[in-house]
């Protein structure tokens, strides 16, 4: 039903959107670490996360993009802001920063950059222009088949997925028990 439509529709102005989203992600990412005001940093981080979600969409992974928006931009960042708002920003912005961890941060950033570069050089065949265009219309169903299996068989990641969800459940229970004095 959808296949006829989606194979015919080429994405609109792909290079423009790619550079737009990548630029937005980089600029707002820089703002995250350069702003002194923590709320401004958090808001910039939201812009970064949303641009990355847009990049996922361009890689024909709409499900990952949707989850990125719900979990990170909608859920985690709300909690971030929630906590930051309770901090006295005026004072903490004026505080003299005495930690000297920026060399470590620089080293970590360089390591990450070299990882990306090596991935770009060695894994050229994994990039979208070398791959067959995936069916955007059935992306969610493919993820479901991977995670839960189909036609009665277990998918390749079913076991790992269930273990991870069990771990998260334990974490939820732990958080509830820690906050409640008596259950």
């Amino acid at each position, binding site marked *: 039903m959808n296949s006829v*439509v989606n194979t015919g*529709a080429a994405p609109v102005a792909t290079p423009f959107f790619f550079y737009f989203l990548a630029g937005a992600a980089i600029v707002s990412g820089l703002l995250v670490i350069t702003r002194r005001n923590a709320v401004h940093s958090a808001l910039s981080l939201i812009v970064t996360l949303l641009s990355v979600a847009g990049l996922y969409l361009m890689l024909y992974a709409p499900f990952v993009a949707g989850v990125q*928006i*719900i979990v990170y*931009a*909608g859920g985690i960042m709300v909690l971030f802001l*929630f906590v930051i*708002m309770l901090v006295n920003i005026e004072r903490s912005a004026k505080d003299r920063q005495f930690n000297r961890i920026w060399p470590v941060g620089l080293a970590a950033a360089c390591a990450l950059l070299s990882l990306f570069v090596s991935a770009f050089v060695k894994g050229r065949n994994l990039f979208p222009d070398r791959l067959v265009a995936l069916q955007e219309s059935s992306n*969610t169903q493919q993820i479901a088949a991977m995670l839960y299996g189909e036609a009665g068989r277990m998918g390749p990641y079913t076991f790992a997925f269930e273990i991870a969800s069990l771990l998260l459940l334990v974490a939820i229970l732990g958080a509830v028990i820690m906050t409640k004095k008596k259950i």
Partner: protein
Amino acid sequence: MLNAFMSYLGSTVPPGNADNQLWALIYVLIIFAGVSLAVVAMNWIERKALAHFQIRLGPMRVGPHGLLQPIADALKLMLKEDIIPAQADAVVFWVAPLIGLLAAFTVYTVIPFGPSQAVSDMNIGILFMLGVSSLGVLGIITAGWASNSHYPLIGALRSSAQMVSYEVAMGLAIVSALLMTSLNRTGTGTLSMIGIVEAQQQQGVWFIFKFFPLGLIAFVIFAIAMIAETNRAPFDLPEAESELTAGFHTEYSGLRWSLFMLGEYAAMIAVSSIAVTLWLGGWMRPFPNLLTGSAWDFIFSLFPGLTFAGLAAIAFIGTARMPAQAYFRIQRIGLAVFAALLGLIALLLLAIAVAGRTNDASIAGRFREGIDYVYWFVLKVAVFMYLFIWYRATWPRYRFDQLMRVGWKVMLPISLGVLILTAIVGVLIS
């Protein structure tokens, strides 16, 4: 240009999927204008309905029966001084209303007013809606923080706590409706908004009635959670005026305040659309599989015209009942013109229904079909909008700890139970 314009009329998929950018743009503009108009209308209806609930008249001075009141309000808000408090964080104060507004309006790109009457049919439709509407809370939080004032901050904290907790129950209720799309031997499920309505059509049942009472319970949970999500009475604690003045938008005035208002009402329409799409058959008219045939199609396609004819009749009765004094003459003429306008729309709709009754492939037939879809969808959403007003007039405000208790200890377990039972029943039946 004309070709591109006409090409869409025969299409059976949304313009976003048919790669028809011109029509997608036209749809975006139509939806934006339509939603803004609906918000204005809702503003008037809410004030009038609330007034009548409380045995008052409501706005009566600006135009006949206060019909021009929303326009006067909008003008006033645009002309009012726009204050930014001295101690506020100016940039965030500026951005906050825009976040809420953008989140509320972006959602409309995937709302299906008909099988091809949507901007786009995304594979992740409902997920996209959930995600983007959950960004709306960021607007409230940032507004509360940027105001640099006590009441807005408390309002924002309440609001974020409330929206985060009710989102959980809401999401679980949505998942149990999504499970129903894949059950009953119809193959794979779908997250696409259009796919969800089509699944209801194929299975011959609105999901509210499926696996009775499981679908109904999930729907009720969603209906409660969506009131909390949109910060409406009885869950309007973020702006509880007796405790917090006006909550998160206390420091806002003029145009920026009206942006908050617009965003809130647009979000109300959006969540009502989700409920209609998931549980109430979306654009489908009543009994689309039972009462088939062109005769029934024709009878149901008369409904839009008859609705407007009824509204025109009410307006005419209002004209006749105006006091016969010179003071009311202009108002009387105005109401008569309004009634005549409604009557003309009714005539136009009826003419389209009659002209398009035989041939579905003709332009009149396509128009008739489209009007039918949009009419039934909007009618169902309108019922929800009226319910929002009705709740506000009926129920007293919750206390915050009660609200949280209901969210986490009642709604969440019930929605989890419904989800598990839906899965079990679905597996057993198919």
